[in-house]
C-alpha cells in the first residue's frame, strides 16, 4: 500500500458489508413480507432488488432491508413496509422488482413516497 487513498478505496468498497452488521436501528427499515404467500406472489426478487440497490447506491448505512412473515393481506402480496423514525409507516402492495427500483430511487433516496403503489392509494387503510 503506497498511499492513504488506496486504504480509503478498500474501506469504501467494504462499506456495505460492514454497515449490514451495524446494530444501529435508527435509520429506515424496509421490510419485505416473505411468508409462503409472499414468496408465491414473487416477493423474493423484490427483496433481492431492494437489498442490491440499497448497497449499490451506498444507502446501507441508513437503510436496512430485511424480511418478515405474513402481514395478513395475502391477496396484496408481495407487500413491502417502510418504517422511518418520526414518519408514518408506508405500505407498498403488489410489488415487483421494477417497482422496487422506483421506490428505492424516489422514496429511499429522494424522500418522496411513491403514492401509486401504496396501500393507502388503493383505498385500503
Amino acid at each position, binding site marked *: *500500500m503506497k498511499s492513504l487513498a488506496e486504504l480509503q478505496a478498500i474501506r469504501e468498497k467494504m462499506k456495505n458489508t460492514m454497515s*449490514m452488521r451495524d446494530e444501529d436501528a435508527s435509520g429506515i427499515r424496509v421490510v419485505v413480507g416473505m411468508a409462503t404467500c409472499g414468496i408465491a406472489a414473487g416477493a423474493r426478487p423484490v427483496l433481492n432488488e431492494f437489498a442490491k440497490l440499497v448497497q449499490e447506491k451506498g444507502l446501507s448505512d441508513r437503510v436496512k432491508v430485511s424480511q418478515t412473515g405474513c402481514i395478513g393481506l395475502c391477496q396484496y402480496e408481495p407487500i413491502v413496509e417502510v418504517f422511518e423514525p418520526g414518519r408514518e409507516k408506508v405500505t407498498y402492495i403488489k410489488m415487483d422488482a421494477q417497482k422496487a427500483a422506483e421506490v428505492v430511487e424516489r422514496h429511499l433516496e429522494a424522500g418522496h413516497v411513491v403514492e401509486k403503489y401504496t396501500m393507502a392509494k388503493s383505498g385500503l387503510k
Partner: protein
Amino acid sequence: MYRSHVLICGGTGCTSSGSQKVRAALIDEIRKQGLEDEVNVVETGCHGLCEQGPVMVVYPDSTFYAQVKPEDVPEIVTEHLLKGRPVTRLVYNEAVTDEGKVLSLNDTDFYKKQVRVALRNCGVIDPENIEEYIGTGGYQALGKVLTEMTPDQVIQEVLDSGLRGRGGGGFPTGLKWKLCAPNKADQKFVCCNADEGDPGAFMDRSVLEGDPHSVLEAMAIAGYAIGANQGYIYVRAEYPIAVKRLEIAIKQAHEYGLLGEDIFGTGFNFDIGLRLGAGAFVCGEETALMRSIEGKRGEPRPRPPFPAVKGLFDKPTILNNVETYANIPEIINRGAAWFASMGVGKSKGTKVFALGGTITNTGLVEIPMGTPLRTIIEDIGGGCPNGKKFKAVQTGGPSGGCIPASYIDIPVDYDHLAEIGCIIGSGGMIVMDEDNCMVDIAKFFLEFTVDESCGKCTACRIGTRRMLEILEKITSGNGTMEDLDKLEQLAYYVKNNSLCGLGQTAPNPVISTLKFFRDEYIAHIVDKKCPAHVCKSLLQYTIDPAKCKGCTACARQCPASAISGKVKEPHVIDQSKCIKCGACMATCKFGAISRQ
C-alpha cells in the same frame, strides 16, 4: 451482493462445542435452498458468551442464536433466512422477551453494560479477511500516525490516554514507550506478550482469534514511536487457532503493503515474526520471554537493566500485552481524551475480563474501569446459579487475591483493588459461591506456582513448595496453629526474596485468603472441619438410622462397597472404606444421609 450475513463463531470455545459442523451444515443447506447468492456465511472470532456456544448472529436483524446444532440448521435457513421469521426456540434465551419479541444483542443483560473497545471487532468481522478489518476503519490509525504525526506526538497521545498495561503489571504504556524511544541502537524491537499463562484467562486468545490485525497495526505504530522496525509476537503453541489467524493476518498485511517496506510510501519499514512458546508460565515474564525468543531457556534475569535499555538480543525493546495493543488504534483514531473519558482515577478505558467459576453467564466481558463488582457479578454475570450465595471472586489468577462478598460494591480498577490486596491482573475472574473452600482455592493456585516455578531462585522454588506442604497438612486435618503462623511468615519471605514476579506474587492467594477468610483456616485446624464441605479428609458421611428405610439404593451406588446393611433395615457406612464421593447422598430418596 448479499442481503444477509450469518456470522458464526469460530473461536476456541465455539469450535469445541461444534461450530465447524454447524457452519458446514449451514453452507450446505443454504446451497440446497438456492440462497447462496443472497446469504453470506462469515466465520468470526469470539462473541464472549462462550458457555452458550456454538453461537451465530444473523444480520441485518442481529438475531443471536445460541447452542445451535447441525439438525437445527434447515429450520433456521427456511424460516429465518428465507421467510424472515426468527426461530425463537433457538434464540439466546436472554434475547427473547416474555412476549416472544426478539431483542438485539446489545439489549440483553449480558451485553447492555459492556463497552467494547479492545473487543470491538471480535464476532463482527472475519479475522481471516484483511478487507473486513479495513472496512471497520482498520489501518487508518497507522496511516494517520505515519503521515501526520511525529513519534513524540504518538507517545504523547498514548501517555495522555492514560492507558496502562493490561498484562498484569499496569505500567503506563506511554511511559514505557517514552523510556525506550531515546535509546540509540542499530536495532530495536517491539514485542507482544501473547503467552497468557493465567489459568482460566482467555482474553488475549479471543483478541488474537477475532481481531489479529488490531495487534499488528498497534505494533507497527509502536515501532514508529520508538524507532524499531522489527516486531515479535510470542504466542503459546496451545493456541492453534490464534496462531493460524496471526499467520494469515501477517501474510495478508504483507500482500497489502501494510507490513514490510515503505508503508504508505512514507519510507517506514516494519516486519513482524511469530515465536511459539511451549506454555511455561514463567515465559510470560518479560525477561524470560525475551530469553525464550532468543532460543534460550526461558528464565528471568534481574532488572535493571530494563528491556527499554537492554532487552531482546540486548537491544532496546518494548513489550506489551495483546489487549494493551488492541486499544492503541482506537486511541489514535478517536483521541486520548475519548479514551481517558472512560474509567476512574488513574485507571482509564475499559478492561476485558474472563468471567468463570460459579456464575450463570460465563464468558468474556469488557467494561469501563471502575465498574462496581456488583454490576459484573449480578447484572452481567447473572449471579451464582441454583440460588447459591456469592462468596468471593478471585482475580489476577495465581498472582492475585480474593475479593470477599462484603466488598461487592468495590469499583473494579487498579487502585481500588490494590487497596484490599487484590489485583486486576490480566483479567481472570473466578466467581465462588458457598460451596467453595477458600483454603482449597489457595492450595489450587499454589499447586500451580509450585509446578511453574522455573527453579532459578531458592525463595520461589523451595518456599512455594513448603507453603504448599503446610496447606496440604491443613486441608487434611493435621494442621496446627503454629503452621498458620509459619505459613504467613513464609508467604512474606517468598514475596520479598524472589527474583521475578512469579515468586513475588505467588503467595498472594494465601495472603489474601488469610486476610479475609482466616476463620476458614482455623475451622480446618481447630475444629477439623471444612465449612464448605470440600476438603475430603475432613468430611464424614453418615446414615441416620431413623430415616433410613433400608432400600439398599445407596449400597448399590457406593463404588467402594463401604455401605452394608440388610434389606428394610438401617444401613451403615464403614468410614475406613468411604472415599467421600457423595454418591450415596445423591442417591438417597429419604434424606437419610448427611455430610459433616
